[in-house]
């Protein structure tokens, strides 16, 4: 259904506050992942050295990752989007089924599609696990040795999974300029919204 001519061509998707949360989290995550790579991958470790400094950067960037999220909770729009990400309706099941079977059929989605919802939930849990295991390794007096060894194990393997998932997240963004524009400017084309998020009932602004 083509929009009537008097309706604006773009619709509001994210507020400035939400974009700030995303951008700050993204930078912290990037620093955290880059410093992790310099600690873990031998060629990078040999190139960079300076182990104490890199450890410090990794610890603090990781510790601060949840902070933008927590500050974002004062934003009503941010909390409303969290609710949208949390709840899965029947259309989300249909979206997932269609995506997993790589069907061409319709993939109904609200403001966020089921893939984005799964990503958000999984990532939130994963970040908390990384935070917990990271703190166990950082403050070695917190727990007995066997916990620390376990924390190292979980931290290392989950880091590998996170690298794959984050690469997927960035890959999806690179593949969709309009989605990127939405996160950069806050608004998206009406046609894009209707195509990608047909069930999203946005207000015109």
């Amino acid at each position, binding site marked *: 259904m083509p929009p009537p001519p008097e309706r604006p061509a773009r619709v509001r998707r994210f507020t400035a506050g939400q974009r700030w949360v995303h951008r700050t989290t993204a930078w912290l995550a990037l620093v955290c992942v880059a410093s992790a790579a310099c600690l873990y991958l031998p060629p990078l470790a040999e190139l960079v050295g300076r182990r104490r400094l890199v450890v410090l950067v990794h610890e603090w960037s990781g510790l601060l990752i949840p902070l933008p999220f927590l500050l974002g909770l004062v934003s009503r729009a941010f909390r409303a989007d969290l609710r949208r990400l949390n709840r899965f309706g029947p259309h989300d099941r249909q979206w997932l089924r269609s995506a997993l079977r790589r069907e061409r059929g319709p993939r109904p989605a609200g403001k966020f599609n089921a893939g984005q919802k799964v990503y958000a*939930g999984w990532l939130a849990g994963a970040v908390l696990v990384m935070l917990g295991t990271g703190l166990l390794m950082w403050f070695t007096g917190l727990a007995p040795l066997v916990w620390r060894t376990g924390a190292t194990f979980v931290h290392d393997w989950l880091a590998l999974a996170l690298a794959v998932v984050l690469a997927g997240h960035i890959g999806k963004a690179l593949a969709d300029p309009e989605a990127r524009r939405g996160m950069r400017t806050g608004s998206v084309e009406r046609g894009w919204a209707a195509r990608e998020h047909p*069930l999203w009932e946005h207000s015109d602004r």
Partner: protein
Amino acid sequence: MGAPLTGALAPVTAGRCDGNLTVRRGPWRRGVRRWSNRRVSTEERTDPGDPDGRGAPVGRRLVLGMLGLGAAGLVAAPLLQRGVEAVAGRDPTGLTGLLPNGGGFRYYSVASSVPELGPQDYRLTVDGLVERPATYSLDALRGLPQTRLVRDVQCVTGWRVPSTPFEGVPLSRLLDAAGVRPEARAVRFDCFDGTYTESLTLAQARRDDVLVALRMQDRPLGHSHGGPVRLYVAPMYFYKSAKWLSGITLTDRVEPGYWERLGYDVDAWVGRSNGRDDAPTA
């Protein structure tokens, strides 16, 4: 109606907003503004036809599920770790070396860059409280009688490399050649990365499982493993085995090394220090 309140994964999930306030609704009262996903402003409230923001709280279950998995992984780690090592041990491709805890060494350097030294420019000095200070070239060290030890390597951060051969000159031999003066009590080690230092008491330094190592895994020590010459202290955590060894100085007391000034134990016996209980390596 609506959201299934299945089990412990959704402990604070309220029922749908159907106006029927019951004890199952959760710890808060209706109408109280709070940070939750139930009450929203008129502007953001979804109308009945809007499917967004309705349905099962799968996002929350994913978060809690990940937390549960993380806790389970923490508990099951020793078992899983052995499984991973068993698989990695039989891997002929070496690809598992890229996986976490996939076996093998990890490279740690505290300096920004480390020069590469070879037979032409490598020198090892022995000085301090000795009768005859000495300087050894790489060839001079190679010309001395060598000792080969095969022990596990245990890092204080947890990784362990089983049965690793090291070969080199026993440190005690270099100490005897220099003539340790009676007032000497300890040895300080300096490295040509310009930053790292280590230390041993004289008694520790005289043990026969402490080497000035020239070879590892039956190959000349590569640069990334601390070559051409590193210290090898078999019974202690691997941070004692200083890489890129360039100086041996006899001192009248123990001068704590790089990591030791940052809180690691000076007497770093494997299994009896740093709050760890690993199996001893010697």
